[in-house]
């Protein structure tokens, strides 16, 4: 540690750090723009000037930019020195001269870093006259607005978009005071992490387009700490509501998971809560396509009757909370409960559990992936499966930069210096997936093959790790083995998307081989849904077993699960047709709900509190943001159990061995802050409490009392000093923007002052005996292809696909074929192809990266299907097909 003196007080700071980060870590109010904790320093904006004194006698000192100044033991600086204060006000004055005074209609107003800094520096009136610059804005796609006139040229957008997220289509264009940050022409911003620009931009150049359509000021939002439902990464989010609608999602910092960034699927897809397909009343089918609304009491009676029938299977869901699944399992009994994933996915989850249980120390956090010096991405494209994981892997590819910087004497936070020095150098990243990924641009070597072939490749890698290749051995396998063995943090990432247990088996062999060789690998396996790693902990029936019983006439309760997305449609239809009475609890109309006898409406993650487990085994709580509209809507666990409070459900669940330690997930309902207060969901400036419901009654309604959590449904309470899991929004005096986060951190980029949210659960070996050592797929006959699922970032996920902006980003159902196979089948690029029983026609794309005899099919996109036939199919050309306009041309 290093001691520095700021305005007369001594502070302990991390050695070698830059002065700005050190000052902010001590919660000093020092204005800045171009610096960002994840992006480092470039010294462009000149806003963070302080006075540095040379020695004890020095009274004048000299101005330095804090972000570019390394801390030195004994250094004496002043933030408050008049010349520093005056200087900072001068810089703001210049920036504000070009900045439009459109704050009243700007989406950033009230949470604008520029506004905060302007007020902080004391600039109030402009002394310069002259014209403001003006620019034409661009169409950037469904997620982001572009308002270049507001730009203060801090360069954070391009530094984030290009340098951090690997995007290429946003650039710094022009020069002098005509600097323009945009695309070379109008078009959709291509990078799937573009949405972070909303939070990276210190003012309103890039704003949240869906949010701005029904805009609400930050201070009028009611918010709660939540967990993104988009995949198994479990990114922490602030979810915010007004007028019964989920308005927007912002990043909620978690040191070990998402850090400062989300993916666009999470940010823009989380508003599925507002979908028109929401179920708001309980209903009982009276004829084929007609449900009759019934009261809660009547509906509950139907549910009880079914539970008491003596022959009921319960199908849970990886997209439902632990509490909801637990309540269903308790009701129907373990022997009658299925976790709701199909058997292939369940088998792969079991393989992951076995692997995690065997090597618990190797299970990495997502941010730990960023520290990898060698990374292998195996079997599954994380850009689609769990995008935030991919963003972390991208950072790992840069680690060599920091090593080079240290050697060259460049501080690692000196971003321009580090990048200028390292240039194109990259840490080894190897990718073995069915198709090229969005990380291939930073990969050292890639190999794309069908899952069955990847499994063989993986076993070869494991063999080579066990008997290391000679130094001069070349080739993909030898290089990976050699680099992984030589690495300090050899890191391997896999996932379940390939639907091929042999892939996971090979992955496990690689990890095992590394451990046998005395290495300490890190690994992470992802799955598609938010609670796959939670629900798979419940033992019980396989989905196939459950469907079989239904087909034989058992009654069924299906929890938040569209079975048509799990299994072959014919099989699901047969089960639903054969079943006794089928009760569906869901938030949305689904094909399964439409086939049910009784449908009960349940709340979504934003309307109830629930616990989910992410891919590193971390249980986390997503807190209720607002009360659901509709009297009949309630959390599934309330429908299914007699528990009074969510904490009671959690305790009961935690009593199961698989959930040991779960109670510690977050503070219980009785938690109060140091001043014995609740934590408010609304800001202290929340307005319109009376007016918001004036159309119903002019009297201000009594605020609901939250019996399940320590939060209040109002501005009453204290949003400071609380546990890290209970931060509903970030705000601090003088810091209205998201930059106020540092006031909630022990140090910038470090732990939250109130501790990290969530608790990591252990893993136990699965009881199943799935053997994934060899692929179950056989070689297709001539003229046939094996269909391989190829999930997409946008469109494959069920929930986010309910959101219009996400749908706009979805590609049409697509089949990727090897050109040789296509020729043999008489198909060419952009033709339409289908197979018997296929739900739709697919757009044909050719790629020589596809292993002959295979076709990759996007799943869940548009009207495409989620589950593909496991047997080889014959592709048929659909002559009536007109290809949709080319996305690139449209862009």
């Amino acid at each position: 540690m290093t001691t520095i003196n700021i305005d007369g007080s001594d502070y302990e700071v991390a050695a070698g750090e830059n002065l700005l980060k050190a000052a902010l870590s001590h919660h000093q109010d020092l204005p800045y723009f171009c610096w960002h904790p994840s992006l480092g320093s470039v010294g462009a904006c000149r806003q963070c000037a302080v006075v540095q004194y040379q020695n004890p006698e020095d009274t004048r000192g000299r101005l330095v930019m804090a972000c570019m100044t390394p801390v030195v033991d004994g250094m004496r600086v002043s933030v408050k020195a008049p010349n520093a204060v005056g200087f900072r006000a001068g810089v703001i004055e210049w920036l504000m001269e070009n900045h439009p005074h459109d704050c009243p209609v700007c989406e950033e107003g009230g949470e604008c870093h520029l506004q905060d800094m302007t007020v902080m520096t004391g600039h109030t009136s402009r002394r310069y006259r002259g014209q403001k610059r003006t620019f034409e804005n661009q169409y950037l796609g469904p997620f982001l607005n572009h308002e270049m006139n507001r730009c203060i040229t801090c360069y954070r957008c391009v530094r984030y978009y290009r340098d951090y997220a690997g995007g290429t289509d946003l650039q710094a264009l022009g020069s002098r005071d005509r600097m323009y940050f945009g695309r070379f022409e109008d078009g959709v911003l291509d990078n799937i992490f573009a949405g972070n620009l909303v939070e990276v931009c210190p003012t309103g150049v890039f704003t949240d387009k869906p949010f701005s359509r029904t805009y609400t000021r930050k201070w009028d939002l009611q918010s709660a700490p939540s967990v993104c439902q988009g995949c198994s990464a479990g990114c922490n989010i602030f979810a915010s509501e007004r007028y019964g609608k989920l308005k927007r999602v912002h990043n909620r910092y978690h040191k070990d998971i998402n850090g400062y960034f989300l993916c666009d699927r999470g940010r823009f897809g989380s508003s599925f809560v507002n979908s028109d397909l929401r179920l708001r009343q309980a209903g009982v089918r009276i004829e084929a396509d007609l449900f009759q609304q019934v009261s809660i009491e009547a509906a509950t009676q139907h549910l009880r009757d079914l539970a008491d029938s003596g022959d009921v299977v319960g199908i849970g869901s990886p997209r439902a909370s632990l509490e909801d699944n637990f309540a269903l399992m308790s009701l129907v009994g373990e022997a009658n409960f299925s976790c709701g994933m199909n058997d292939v996915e369940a088998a792969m989850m079991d393989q992951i559990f076995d692997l995690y249980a065997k090597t618990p120390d190797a299970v990495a956090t997502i941010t730990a992936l960023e520290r990898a010096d060698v990374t292998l991405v195996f079997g599954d494209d994380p850009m689609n499966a769990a995008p935030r994981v991919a963003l972390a892997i991208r950072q790992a590819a840069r680690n060599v930069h920091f090593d080079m910087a240290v050697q060259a004497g460049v501080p690692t936070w000196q971003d321009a210096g580090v990048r200028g020095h390292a240039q194109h150098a990259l840490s080894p990243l190897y990718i073995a997936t069915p198709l090229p990924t969005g990380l291939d641009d930073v990969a050292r070597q890639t190999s794309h093959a069908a899952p069955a072939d990847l499994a063989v490749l993986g076993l070869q890698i494991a063999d080579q790790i066990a008997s290391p290749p000679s130094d001069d051995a070349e080739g993909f396998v030898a290089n990976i083995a050699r680099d992984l063995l030589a690495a300090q943090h050899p890191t391997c990432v896999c996932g379940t998307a390939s639907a091929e247990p042999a892939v996971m088996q090979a992955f496990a062999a690689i990890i095992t081989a590394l451990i046998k060789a005395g290495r300490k690998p890190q690994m992470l396996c992802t799955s598609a849904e938010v609670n796959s790693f939670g629900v798979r902990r419940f033992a019980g029936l396989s989905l196939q077993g459950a469907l079989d019983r239904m087909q034989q006439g058992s009654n069924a309760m299906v929890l938040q699960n569209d079975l048509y997305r799990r299994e072959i449609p014919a099989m699901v239809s047969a089960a639903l047709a054969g079943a006794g009475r089928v009760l569906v609890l869901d938030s949305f109309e689904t094909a399964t709900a439409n086939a049910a006898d009784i449908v009960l409406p349940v709340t979504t993650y934003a309307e109830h509190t629930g616990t989910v487990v992410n891919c590193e085994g971390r249980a986390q709580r997503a807190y209720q943001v607002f009360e659901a509209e509709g009297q009949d809507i309630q959390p599934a666990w309330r429908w299914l159990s007699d528990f009074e409070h969510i904490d009671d459900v959690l305790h009961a669940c935690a009593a199961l061995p698989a959930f040991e330690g779960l109670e510690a997930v977050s503070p219980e309902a009785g938690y109060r802050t140091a001043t014995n207060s609740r934590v408010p969901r609304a800001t202290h400036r929340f307005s319109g409490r009376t007016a918001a419901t004036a159309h119903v009654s002019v009297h201000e309604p009594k605020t609901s009392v939250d019996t399940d959590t320590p939060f209040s449904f109002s501005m009453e309470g204290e949003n400071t000093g609380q546990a890290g899991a209970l931060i509903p929004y970030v705000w601090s005096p003088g810091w209205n923007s998201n930059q106020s986060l540092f006031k909630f951190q022990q140090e910038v980029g470090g732990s939250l002052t109130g501790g990290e949210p969530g608790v990591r659960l252990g893993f136990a070996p699965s009881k199943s005996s799935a053997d994934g050592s060899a692929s179950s797929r056989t070689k297709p006959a001539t003229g046939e292809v094996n269909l391989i699922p190829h999930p997409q970032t946008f469109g494959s996920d069920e929930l986010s696909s309910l959101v219009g902006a996400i749908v706009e980003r979805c590609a049409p159902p697509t089949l990727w074929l090897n050109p040789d196979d296509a020729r043999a089948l008489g198909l060419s690029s952009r033709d339409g192809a289908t197979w018997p029983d296929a739900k739709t026609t697919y757009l044909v794309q050719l790629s020589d990266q596809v292993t002959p005899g295979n076709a990759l099919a996007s799943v869940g996109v548009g009207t495409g299907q989620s589950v593909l036939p496991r047997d080889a199919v014959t592709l048929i050309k659909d002559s009536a097909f007109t290809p949709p306009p080319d996305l690139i041309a449209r862009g």
Partner: protein
Amino acid sequence: MTTTIFIARDSTAIAVGADGIAAQISAQCDQNQHPVQIARPGSRGMYWAEPLVEVEINGVRHGFGPVTSDAVAGLCDLICPLDRAPIDPKVFKQHPLYLGDLSHHAYLAAQQRLLFARAGLIDALDLTQYERLGGLRGLRRALASNSQSIIDQITESGLRGRGGAAFPAGIKLKAAAEAEGVNKYIVCNADEGDSGTFADRLLMEADPFQIIEGMLIAALATGATRGYVYLRSEYPLTASLFGQALVLAREHGLLGPSIYGSSHSFDIELRIGAGAYICGEETSLLESIEGRRPEVRSKPPLPVHHGLFNSPTVINNVLTLASMTSIMAEGAQAYHDLGAGTSRGTQPFQLAGNIRFGGVVEVPFGVSLRTLIEEFGGGTASGRPIKAVQTGGPLGKYLGVRQLDVPMTYEDLASAGGLLGHGGIVVFDDSVDMAQQARFAMAFCAAESCGKCTPCRIGSVRGVEILDRIKTGKNLEKEIKLLDELCVTMTDASLCAMGSMTPNPVLSALTIGPEDFGLPAGSRHPTES
């Protein structure tokens, strides 16, 4: 007997009509049926005399200039008389444009030319002529010695970077020689963008092999195998001539896999900039060569360790690299004997602006500014008294008449508040409007700012606006105060010299000519700037 007539092929000479004069003379000679050979060497740098026509008679080159189109007919009567009548140099004296035997002309004789010793004398693209007048001797000695002794020679000579930063050239070579790297590069900075400077261009057009030779010596010193010359796009003739010189050098084995049969390999690529002033800054220049936005790199790492394509790189100005040839040829001591203080050797000063005899004056450091302007330059072209002199390019301060006795060394000029820079000297007489000059400085910064840092990007635009308002005379006191404040913030806060030095000419203009801003004369003290 064929008469040889020399007319410079030089951007400046051509700009004032040298090509037309050459064509006219050629036509007139045909008409007179006088066999002449019109040679087009580079310019001698006596730009005040361009278009300069030289006639070689018995090995003596008689000069006439500046020759206007109207004067051609009369001149031809003397130098290529009708029907091969004998030429009598004695009658030349009667011609009003006659400058005498140029080798004894005071303007040149009073100079001590090392870099420009051959300029105007030889065909720029004739390697034999280059060698005959002392070229390649430095390279031969370098090839015969080793890296260490070349570095020692350059270090002992006291040569400092001529681009303006004046960094010791020997230290840079040593650092690059010691740096580890598979590839090393020599980059020649020919992005001559400072106002009032033209020495780089003149040398590249008049004596390109000297630059190639200098780069080869630097390559031998450091082990570099590849060189780049970064030339500004505004010099198309230079690009063409230098490009041809590179081809010839390759043909003659000067460049290529084996330099003059040695085991050393070196080649040079000519890169043309796209017209940004900032590319003259060494790290932006490297970015530009690499094909990126020319933004200033942060140091460390220094280019000598991690420069072009992340490899050890020596980046020097044209004149610095060229100076290495005479240092190697004549020895370090001979070079070190010239100059004053820590500014050793000669500096080609470039006289420009309102000056009677504008051109290149290469003399040892230490000569006074007054000597340069009054004795070489002959005072202002207008004949009016001098009011201001700007040295060191557009970011240099304006010096007033009281500062003309400053000795031209890096240190002396710096202590007078000025900047030696690349040796450009721009003179203004008392008709100059210093407020316009201040505005120009701000406008230049506004046009050339890369846009990265706030003070340079926005401050310069506001500076132009304030200066425009000052001209209206309204709220003068307030506007001047604002200008002062703006200049302080720009100086303190800019990321690189572009923004932080722009206030130099602005504030010094205020000191020198307050009346041009509507202020009472003498109202600004030098301390205020």
